[in-house]
């Protein structure tokens, strides 16, 4: 029954199984390494030709063979920060509402809606953005800021209201990252010990003071982690932004002016790039995007882990 051959066969099966799972586990590190290598290698001709000037000059002219990605870098940062400024207070508000105040059925309904926001594909946000949001911004919001509030005098709201603009990009990004920030914040808030809340109430704090002085400070680094995670998503978000931001290689202080982001430059120009240098420049933009998002994500995860909130999806 237990002949030598049988035992041999058993251990061979185990070895094969072990070998297959280990090889599979190597796929993720290899993939990541390959992505980094391929993108950097393909972008190297542009990086070596233009040097650091690639990210600091703003002349992007495929015909003359001049490539400076500063407007894309600028647009990526500004649209993402704008999105954070809009989404963060809302997301924290939603998370506090859901974890502290909402009656159970409302909580489930709102949580479901907010989760659903995260399930909508980027291109559908873009479709809605280009056909509904942009006309609305152009017709109502932009004139309101520029003329009614007289902010047109400041550089931030000056110039004609095109519609596709940095503002539109920021708003659509805010809608898209809100569910991520609020989901992480909610998890972190739920992880705040009950004693923390009871102690604050016992000292005579109102329910708001309990949240503001006892709960939020406790959860602070986790919340910051969630916000940075949202930032990571916003930086790399491609389709929706490409569809509403206007796609113009220009740096403008005005939020009403069209702009560009790193991801949307790639999405928009890659299939039309004919010269080797143009492709290499787009790859170099991709390399920059790679570095920025990896750094931002690593910081975010570290912060969330440190607070002991659950692992974000």
């Amino acid at each position, binding site marked *: 029954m237990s002949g030598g051959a049988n035992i041999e066969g058993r251990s061979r099966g*185990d070895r094969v199984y072990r070998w297959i799972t280990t090889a599979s586990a190597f796929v993720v590190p290899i993939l990541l390494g390959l992505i980094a290598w391929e*993108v950097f290698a393909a972008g190297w001709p542009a990086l070596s030709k233009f040097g650091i000037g690639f990210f600091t000059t703003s002349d992007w002219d495929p015909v003359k063979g001049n490539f400076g990605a500063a407007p894309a870098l600028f647009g990526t940062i500004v649209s993402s920060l704008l999105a954070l400024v809009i989404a963060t207070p809302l997301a924290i508000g939603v998370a506090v509402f859901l974890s502290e*105040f909402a009656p159970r059925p409302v909580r489930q309904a709102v949580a479901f*809606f907010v989760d659903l926001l995260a399930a909508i594909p980027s291109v559908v946000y873009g479709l809605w953005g280009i056909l509904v949001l942009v006309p609305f911004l152009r017709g109502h919001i932009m004139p309101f800021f520029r003329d009614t509030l007289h902010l047109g005098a400041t550089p931030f709201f000056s110039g004609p209201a095109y519609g596709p603009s940095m503002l539109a990009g920021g708003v659509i990004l805010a809608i898209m990252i809100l569910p991520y920030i609020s989901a992480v914040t909610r998890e972190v808030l739920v992880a705040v010990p009950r004693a923390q809340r009871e102690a604050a109430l016992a000292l005579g704090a109102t329910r708001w*003071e309990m949240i503001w002085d006892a709960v939020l400070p406790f959860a602070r680094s986790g919340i910051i982690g969630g916000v940075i995670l949202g930032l990571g998503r916003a930086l*790399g978000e491609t389709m929706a932004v490409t569809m509403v931001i206007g796609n113009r290689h220009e740096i403008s202080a005005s939020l009403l002016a069209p702009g560009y982001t790193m991801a949307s430059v790639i999405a928009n120009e890659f299939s039309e790039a004919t010269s080797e240098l143009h492709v290499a420049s787009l790859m170099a933009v991709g390399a920059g995007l790679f570095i920025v998002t990896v750094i931002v994500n690593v910081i975010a995860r570290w912060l969330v882990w440190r607070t002991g909130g659950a692992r974000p999806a």
Partner: protein
Amino acid sequence: MTAAAQGTARRDAATRSYRELIARSTARTLARRRVMARVMIGSTYLAAIVATLPLILIVWHLLERGASSLNWNFFTHMPAPSGEAGGGMANAIVGTGMILLIASVVGLPIGIASGLYLAEQRGARLATAVRFLSDVLNGLPSILLGIFAWQLLVRPFKHFSALAGGMALAAMTIPLVARTTEEMIRLVPVSMREAALALGYTKWRTSLSVVLRTALPGIVTGALVAVARIAGETAPLLFTAFGNQFWSVSPFQPIAALPTQIYNYAISPFDDWHSQAWAGALILIGLVLVISLAARFVTRNRFGLAAD
């Protein structure tokens, strides 16, 4: 009245007014604090309303504009040329199915196998690294996977292909599935593994027919969630599957897909194409929702350990 009595009276009066002052001021700050609490708590309610508003608007517009251009032709006809009303997205619907099939066939087994590794070699240095790198890969913008797949699978062969698109999406499923599989397998009690080993099962049969099988509903859910997530991806397909106005199911030819078709139609200046884009978006969201609901259904309906 004596001077002393006058002094006492005055002192009493002073004390009284002082007390009143304190009472008044504490009452006022307490009132102010209460108002503050009301306002701030109210503003969290407001935040919840404002946050759900875009979703309601998006769904409303999708239903309103998508449903009106949705008919049977949409599923059975090919795209109409610009300026011509009607037409459908039959090729894009089939194309999306094809790409998802390629991505699932390649990505899911690798993801599940590496999830098994992560759960079984929990403390190994490779496992820690893979867990961390999976999160990094997850956070990478999907457009980078697009240019990566282009560089690897399109550039050398000099033409776009369904295969390249499927591979780009497969790369997105692997880290997702690896992490959910790991979590689901960890939920299986060690005693089950020990019982199987004690009965003389080999390690690999224990892992596959006892542990993996027990965790299967949860793993299937994780796989479906991953597929739902890649179903709507556009950026990785732009320079890999590319899109195709004609009928094609060949893995080695450019292929149409719902997301890329929606994108192309949305940025076009034609009203007919816009309404086609709305209909396509409605179908795409429907597809994502059906897959997500199926994912919940799988865990709810068996008594897998994964059911929450």
